[in-house]
Every structure is written in structure tokens, then in C-alpha cells.
């Protein structure tokens, strides 16, 4: 019984982690059709931002929840201005340019911080379920992931900003004709996506630690989740994270973490063979 509870929490945690690492990417990809291969490095930079801020005496919660998203959000806006903007509509070139950006960030961070693991302790401690101990912080991550999804839904559904974003996503030319400036919407979207990615990086830093090449560990999972999710940003990410998080954690429990990851990938390839446009290409159509 205790084991079942622990396993269920592990699965929830796996799902929440997937949501956290892929929601920023989903926004950028869903709104702008831009594949940002520097996504993993945005996560990595968010992690470093949190750790550096904490080591300089900033409260750990402020470091993770405020400093990380702001730092990475600003970097995102700069990257959008300098690189992405030049390449709109050229999907493959954007893919390559952001990969160049990713190498650049890895090199830069290695030069500054060295190729070693940095980390901070996870706050909050834990509680016991029978013979097992559960980290309260991991449980909190589940809550945060849910809050992010709900907040995004509310913003996109109910605010004027969300309306503009959805309109531009649907038909940029029509939006421009009605007086909205698509480049400005894109810049804001990219900034928000990057900020959410930075937030995720900051939140995950106490759990996994960061090193310059940590992005590679996240980026594949994030992309698989977003692509398998399909066109609907929130419903797609949530449903794909639900599916793959469960597969990953169950396989990890039964075998090893690496098999769990391989299983995640295999599940994604099989899924895309059946549903080439992702889950929301067929189910939940028209959702956000």
C-alpha cells in the first residue's frame, strides 16, 4: 500500500517535471512554429541563475521563482531580436541557428563556471509514508506545474493579451490588418516562453544539479513531449506529459532510469506513427 502511494507520487512527479520542462517550448513552438534547440540551455541558464543568486545570499525561493525567469526571459528577448527575428518562416534555418546558440551558451558557461556540477540543497525537507520518505519539495513541483498550466489557460482564454496572442497564432496577416503588430506579439511570446523555461530550470536545479551540458538531458524529453502533444499548446503538453511521464516512471520503477527514457522515446515514435500530428491533432481538437 505504502509502495503504491510512493509510486503514484513518483509518477505524478514525472508528469510534473515533463510539464515544467516543456511548457515554455510548447508556447514558443505552438505560437510561432519556431523550434528552439537552445531550449535545454535556457533550462541550464535558469538553473545557474538560481544557484548563483542563492550563493550570493538571495532567498532561495526568490532566486528560483523570480531571478531565474527574469534572467532567462531577458536572454530570450535578446535572442529573439538578434537571431530568431531574422529567420522567421525559415523553420530549418531557425532550428540550426538556435542549435548554434545552444553550443555558444554551453561554451560560454563552461568558460565561466567550469565543467563541474553546481547545486543547491532542496528546501522543505520531507515526510514519511509508511517506511518511505517523500520529499515535500517534489510534491510542491507537482502543484507548481498545475498552477502554471491553469494560469496560462486563464491568460489565453480570458485576457486581451491572450486574445491577441491566439489571434496572431491563428492568422498573423489578419491580426496585422486589424492593427496588431505580429513581431511584437512574437517577441513577447518568445520572452514568456523563455521565462517559463528559466523558471523550470531554477525549480529543477535543487533536484538534479546543473552543469554546462545538462541541457542535453532535458531537451530530448521536452521536444518529444511537445511534438507528440500536437497543435494545442496546453492540452497537448498536458496529455503528452501524462502519457510519457507514466511510461517513463513505471519503466524506471520496473527496470532502470535509462530504460525508462528509452521507453519514453519508443512510445513517442510509436505514437507519432499512429498520430503523425500528435495527440491533439486527432483528440481534443480545438482546445487550447
Amino acid at each position: 500500500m505504502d509502495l503504491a502511494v510512493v509510486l503514484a507520487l513518483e509518477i505524478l512527479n514525472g508528469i510534473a517535471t515533463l510539464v515544467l520542462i516543456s511548457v515554455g517550448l510548447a508556447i514558443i513552438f505552438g505560437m510561432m512554429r519556431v523550434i528552439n534547440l537552445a531550449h535545454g540551455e535556457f533550462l541550464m541558464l535558469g538553473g545557474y541563475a538560481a544557484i548563483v543568486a542563492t550563493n550570493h545570499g538571495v532567498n532561495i525561493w526568490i532566486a528560483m521563482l523570480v531571478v531565474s525567469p527574469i534572467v532567462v526571459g531577458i536572454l530570450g528577448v535578446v535572442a529573439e531580436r538578434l537571431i530568431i527575428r531574422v529567420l522567421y518562416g525559415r523553420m530549418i534555418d531557425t532550428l540550426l541557428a538556435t542549435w548554434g546558440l545552444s553550443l555558444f551558451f554551453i561554451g560560454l558557461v563552461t568558460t565561466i563556471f567550469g565543467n563541474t556540477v553546481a547545486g543547491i540543497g532542496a528546501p522543505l525537507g520531507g515526510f514519511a509514508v509508511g517506511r518511505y520518505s517523500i520529499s515535500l519539495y517534489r510534491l510542491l513541483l507537482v502543484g507548481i506545474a498545475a498552477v502554471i498550466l491553469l494560469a496560462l489557460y486563464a491568460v489565453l482564454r480570458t485576457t486581451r493579451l491572450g486574445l491577441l496572442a491566439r489571434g496572431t497564432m491563428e492568422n498573423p496577416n489578419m491580426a496585422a490588418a486589424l492593427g496588431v503588430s505580429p513581431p511584437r506579439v512574437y517577441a513577447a511570446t518568445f520572452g514568456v516562453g523563455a521565462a517559463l523555461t528559466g523558471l523550470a530550470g531554477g525549480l529543477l536545479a535543487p533536484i538534479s544539479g546543473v552543469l554546462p551540458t545538462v541541457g542535453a538531458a532535458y531537451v530530448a524529453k521536452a521536444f518529444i513531449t511537445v511534438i507528440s502533444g500536437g497543435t494545442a499548446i496546453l492540452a497537448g503538453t498536458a496529455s503528452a506529459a501524462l502519457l510519457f511521464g507514466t511510461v517513463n516512471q513505471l519503466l524506471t520503477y520496473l527496470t532502470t532510469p535509462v530504460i525508462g527514457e528509452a521507453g519514453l522515446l519508443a512510445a513517442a515514435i510509436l505514437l507519432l506513427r499512429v498520430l503523425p500530428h500528435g495527440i491533439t491533432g486527432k483528440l481534443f481538437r480545438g482546445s487550447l
Partner: protein
Amino acid sequence: MILRHVSPGVLVTAAVMVTVAVGAPLIVDQFQLLQLTVFAGMCILALSLGVVWGYGGILCFGQSAFFGLGAYTYAVTAVNVGESTLAIALSLVVPAVFAALLGYFMFYGRLSDVYLGVITLSVTLIFFNLTNSTAGDAYRIGRARLNGFNGMPSLPTFNVPGTPGRLLDPTETFYLVMALLLIVYVGLHALLASHFGRVVVAVRENETRCELLGYDVRRHKLLIFTLGGAIAGLAGSLFANWGAFVSPNVFSLTTTSQIIIWVIVGGLGTLVGPIIGCVVMQYLATELGTQQLANTSLIFGIIFLAFVLLVPRGIVPSLAALRARLSAARARPAAQARRAA
């Protein structure tokens, strides 16, 4: 028959390769010869992506998956058999079979470019993680221990087929690798000049039109992708032989980004481009590796960005375009003078 389609440029490149193969061992020392050997092996890897991406239009971010699979196949087989002929053969077959399997799911699922890129990238990262986690005695294939992130050292190197005791010396290995490079280069040109090759290029240009003309787009993509996997696997076995060593790094992001950089820098849609890009960037990487001023990743990232933003077509096509512009500019005044007269 096929020779009719071969352009003078191909003959020139082939002649240069033969000259290097024959001349280099006479003038350079052993260390430089070893360097040239690994450059030539990597050129084969560059060609594999050059054909899959440049001609097949398939952006494969996971060419290093096939490269690494080839290297590991060679290592495991050579350790078990103690003779390299079968190992080299298998290093072509295993990646090809894997490429065919992966390609089946991707092309018959009709995934678009970007999705292909992401899936192939994920595959290579998973391989990286998988091989990294194979430390310990439990992970052995026959007599070969995989050794996780430490890699497999002291692999048997190439021997004369049939006589395991007679190993190839560095000069002979260099001849072999150059010969293989020449065969792959000329062979790919011959393939591209054939009916199959022309359909592959046509698919790159316009998939729908090809389909309407009755060609099976999916099958052509799958075949060229599989061929690319086999060639990358061959390069993998050459790499494993070169250092008598293989580690999970063959699957790493660094390896896979290098291959893409070679092709971008050299030029898409040519075969000589990836070769030039590979030699230039390999040379640069070796030079950067010996200094401490700046991180190699940093420099490569900047070069990558610069090429995508400023020279998106790569060196070779840009030079060709420049030459065409210059000769047009030279022709124009002459024509005007004629008209005036």
C-alpha cells in the same frame, strides 16, 4: 553509361584525393599521417550526412547515432572474433538495419522535416545515455565489456582479411581509408546520376509532385536514409580502428553538431562541400583544442550562427555563385561594347 553524367568537378576532386593518398605518406611524418587518416574517415561521415540532407532533403540530427552504432558494432565484434573483416562488414549492416527501422516509422508516418530532426536528435541522446549507463561486469556482449562512460580500450585494429596476426601499419591504414573515401565519393556521385538518385533529388524538390508522378516517396527516402546510416557506420568503424578505442562520446551532442557544421560550412547539395567543411573544421578543432584561450564549443557555436545567418548556402555553393556573378559581370561590358560597335 553513368560516366556520361559525371561532371569534370568530380574527376578533379577524385584526382586530388588520389594525389593526397599517394603523395601524403611520402612527405608528412607519422603523426600528421594519423591526423590525415582520421580526417579522411570523418570525411566519409560528412559525406553520409551530405547525401542524406543535401540530396535527400532529410535533416538528420542523429547521424552520430549511426556513426556510434558502427563504432560500437566494430568494437564488440572485433573483440569477440579477434579478426576485423566481419567487424567492418557488420559495422555497415547494423547501423543500416537500425536506420531502416527508424526510417520506417518516420517516413511511413509521414513526419515532416522538423519532427525528423527532433526524433533523430532524441535517438542519439538516448544512445548516449544508454551506453553511458553500461558500466560494470553485467554489461558485456560475449567477451566484450562495454565499460560505460570509460569506453572500450585496446580494440583489435584492422588486419589483412583472413590473417588476424597481420595488422595494417599506419601507412596501409591511410591508403585503405583514402580508398574507401574515394569509393564512397565516386559511388555516391554515380548513384545520384542514376535514375534512383534523380528521383531522390526530385523528392527533395517537390514531394507532392513526385508522388503524383507515381513514385513512392516514402520508399526513396527510406532507402537513401538507410544508405546514409550504412556509410556513417563505416566511418564509425574507421574511427574505432583509428584510436583502437570507442566511448559513448561518439553519440554525444558534440559529435552530432560537428557533422551538421561540416555540411553547413561546406555547402548543402554538394558532395565536395561536406568534405571541405570537414577538413577545415577538423583542422580548426585540433588547433583550438591545443590552446586554452576559448572553449571549442563557444567558437563552434559562433561559426555555426555566422554561417546560418550570413552564408546560409555554405562555402562551395557561395563560391560557385560568386564565380558565376563575376563571369557575368565580365561578360556584360564586352557585350555592351559589341552592341555599341
